[in-house]
């Protein structure tokens, strides 16, 4: 027996990013604190109002309590769960249940990283798998490359179709003044890039940046008192299928199929109704896999879906409108940035990249090597 997700019982009343790009001299918690302050401020709230803190730090395994100390607060609930980049979607799911149950009133979900300035590369904090280490897999790169190779083998997905994902992300980023990678990128540039992990070159991989993000959730009733345009959480669900790539049951099917189906069922809507799809693009193949697994197109047709500018500005579906992990930012864990962008689209705050009349958005998170999948469906204040 499972409890139904509390549809629209909780709503997002603040969402902010800070420092996407390079922020030398800043610590991760400092970056996250500024984003948190700004997100809370949108609802007229302060740190002391937070009684549910959801936070994970790139390298501090006690990051949740460290961040509470840094903010000077003593929240009733601290969640420091680590499912990878999808952790933030799982926080939204849990916070919605806790708010609906009356356990907490104000949830702050925050993240910050200075990995680009501090380490200059993706910081790896996970245990190496002894059965993979001898073969020098470049994780997470190799895991995703293996999934992409299999997708190309089974469905005829092409390198140029992967390139369409990178080009679309770049075109959206060029409409977003806060995005980090906004230089022109052509298909020739993409195809000529040095191969790193066949079939991936540099433009198939997400950026390595600094950056922070935060969102604030509260009950629907309180949300309506606090802000003009609260964004209701209509559905949320998570699923996992493996940890290491060799244990993935089918290299071309992710657990987003389960998390997506459950989240859409909770929200009572179908993928064709979605106006904005924020899909965690750690690598170009991710976007294709999630378009398929979340139900935007049949399995194997993701390559055709993105072809001919299908997900670029003006295409058939607005996907990763901030520029994505590929061209906006990727500070180690990116899931929260998909949520902030979805909220801003639903609040009509996105300027040149605004999707007209955005009413429904999906923010999908991914963790590990396609290991953890978590889906959040967000609505418009008019749907409350």
């Amino acid at each position, binding site marked *: 027996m499972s409890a139904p997700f509390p549809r629209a019982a909780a709503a997002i009343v603040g969402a902010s990013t800070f420092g996407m790009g390079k922020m030398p001299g800043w610590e991760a918690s400092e970056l996250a604190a500024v984003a948190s302050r700004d997100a809370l401020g949108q609802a007229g709230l302060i740190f002391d109002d937070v009684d549910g803190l959801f936070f994970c730090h790139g390298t501090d395994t006690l990051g949740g309590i460290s961040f509470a100390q840094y903010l000077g607060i003593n929240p009733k609930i601290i969640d420091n769960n680590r499912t990878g980049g999808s952790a933030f979607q799982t926080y939204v799911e849990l916070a919605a249940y806790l708010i609906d149950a009356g356990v907490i009133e104000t949830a702050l979900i925050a993240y910050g990283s200075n990995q680009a300035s501090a380490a200059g590369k993706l910081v790896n904090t996970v245990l190496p798998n002894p*059965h993979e280490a001898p073969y020098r897999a470049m994780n997470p790169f190799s895991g995703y490359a293996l999934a992409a190779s*299999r997708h190309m*083998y089974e469905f005829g997905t092409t390198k140029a179709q992967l390139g369409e994902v990178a080009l679309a992300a770049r075109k959206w980023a060029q409409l977003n003044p806060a995005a980090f990678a906004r230089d022109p990128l052509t298909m020739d540039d993409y195809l000529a890039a040095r191969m790193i992990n066949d079939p991936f070159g540099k433009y198939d991989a997400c950026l390595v940046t600094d950056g922070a993000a935060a969102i604030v959730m509260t009950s629907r009733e309180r949300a309506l008192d606090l802000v003009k345009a609260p964004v209701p959480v209509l559905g949320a669900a998570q699923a996992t299928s493996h940890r290491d790539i060799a244990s993935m049951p089918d290299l071309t099917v992710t657990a987003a199929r389960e998390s997506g189906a459950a989240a859409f069922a909770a929200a009572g809507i179908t993928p064709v109704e979605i106006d904005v799809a924020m899909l965690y693009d750690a690598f170009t193949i991710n976007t294709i896999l999630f378009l398929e697994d979340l139900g935007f197109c049949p399995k194997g047709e993701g390559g055709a879906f993105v072809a001919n500018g299908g997900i670029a500005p003006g295409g058939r579906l607005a996907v990763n409108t901030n520029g994505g992990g590929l061209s906006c930012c990727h500070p180690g864990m990116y899931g929260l940035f998909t949520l902030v962008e979805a909220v801003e689209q639903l609040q009509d705050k996105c300027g040149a990249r605004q999707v007209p009349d955005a009413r429904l958005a999906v923010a999908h998170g991914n963790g590990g090597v396609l290991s953890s999948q978590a889906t959040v469906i967000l609505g418009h204040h008019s749907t409350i």
Partner: protein
Amino acid sequence: LLKAASCSSAARRAARHFSRRACDPEPDYNIVLIDLDEGPRLMSRVDGIAPGAVTIGMPVQAKIITENEAPTLIFEPAA
């Protein structure tokens, strides 16, 4: 016979953040997921063939070699 479920050749270059002219790239190598006839899938490498010549579905056979002073399972194209 065992089959390659997926493969990726990794062109790894040492010290990416230093001048490319100053460091020669490491040779390419492949990373392969092998489906055993018994059912399990595991990560390994196919030797005895150019890294980029490994293809999905090709039959391979297991071999244990010594690498970094440790017994290591690799695969070779099936005869």
